[in-house]
């Protein structure tokens, strides 16, 4: 099955890349965008036997740096 791990910066952590993207959006002439935060989407193809605990360990020990990032795991129905 497919698993999506969304990695995002914690609230309060400055995001220079998000800020640059924000400026670029404004440069395209779009107004009304309040804020931009950049994150990562990591897709895993896993056996059905892989547990939530195992996925949490992968996410917290490697995919996200828990000092600055949060993650959210989503199992995608085939």
């Amino acid at each position, binding site marked *: 099955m497919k698993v999506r791990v969304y990695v995002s910066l914690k609230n309060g*952590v*400055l995001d*220079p890349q998000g800020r640059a993207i924000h400026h670029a959006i404004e440069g395209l002439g779009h107004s009304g965008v309040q804020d931009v935060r950049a994150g990562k989407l990591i897709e895993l193809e896993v056996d059905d036997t892989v547990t939530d605990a195992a996925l949490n360990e992968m996410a917290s020990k*490697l995919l996200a*740096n828990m*000092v*600055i990032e949060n993650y959210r795991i989503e199992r995608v129905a085939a």
Partner: protein
Amino acid sequence: MKSFSAAVITFPGSNCDRDMAVAIEDVCGGTVHRVWHRDAELPAGLDLIALPGGFSYGDYLRSGAMAARSPIMRAVVEAAGRGVAVLGVCNGFQVLTEAGLLPGALMRNAGIRFVCRNVALTVANTQSQFTRGYLPGQRITIPVAHHDGNYQADEATLDRLEGEGRIAFRYAEPVNGSARDIAGVLSEKGNVLGMMPHPERMIEAAHGGKDGRVLFDSVVRGLVGA
């Protein structure tokens, strides 16, 4: 007395490993072992382990993230726990934070751009085995070359680092947006130092200065005095 013995770890994508080895050989003398990331063991009797700058694993996932999980890092963490001196410069600093040997994280520079120039630093700790050759508050010049050098940690961690004298160097000018101008931090026991500036690139007159030499000299002098 046995001669000085150091190891420089090379990860795929390290590019300052030779400079680091040359600096250690020049200033500390003795033997510098070159260790590959897949090695599971370090040579016995090391006085210093150095993690060099570069772009290990192409900075995939996060700078230093993959290298921090490589086989040799288990041995480095174990050696650090025994009190062996560990120096991480630039990408090496990123690897040390990712491996949990130092607190905080190194994020994209606040100005987005890669910064490559000499910068002024203030020596904030002159008690550690890496910095005791400097004078308190001494202003030194060391080059930086990084994209992800913006040091961040939560306020409680930053307060603790300051309270315990674990900030080794601060930027004396705006460089990358680091919290409290932190350029280098020490571990709780003081035997692990991570820093973004490159002391190994400032060890002889041809480099434009010798301010980095003092750091390596401090490590070797501490051993002689011990």
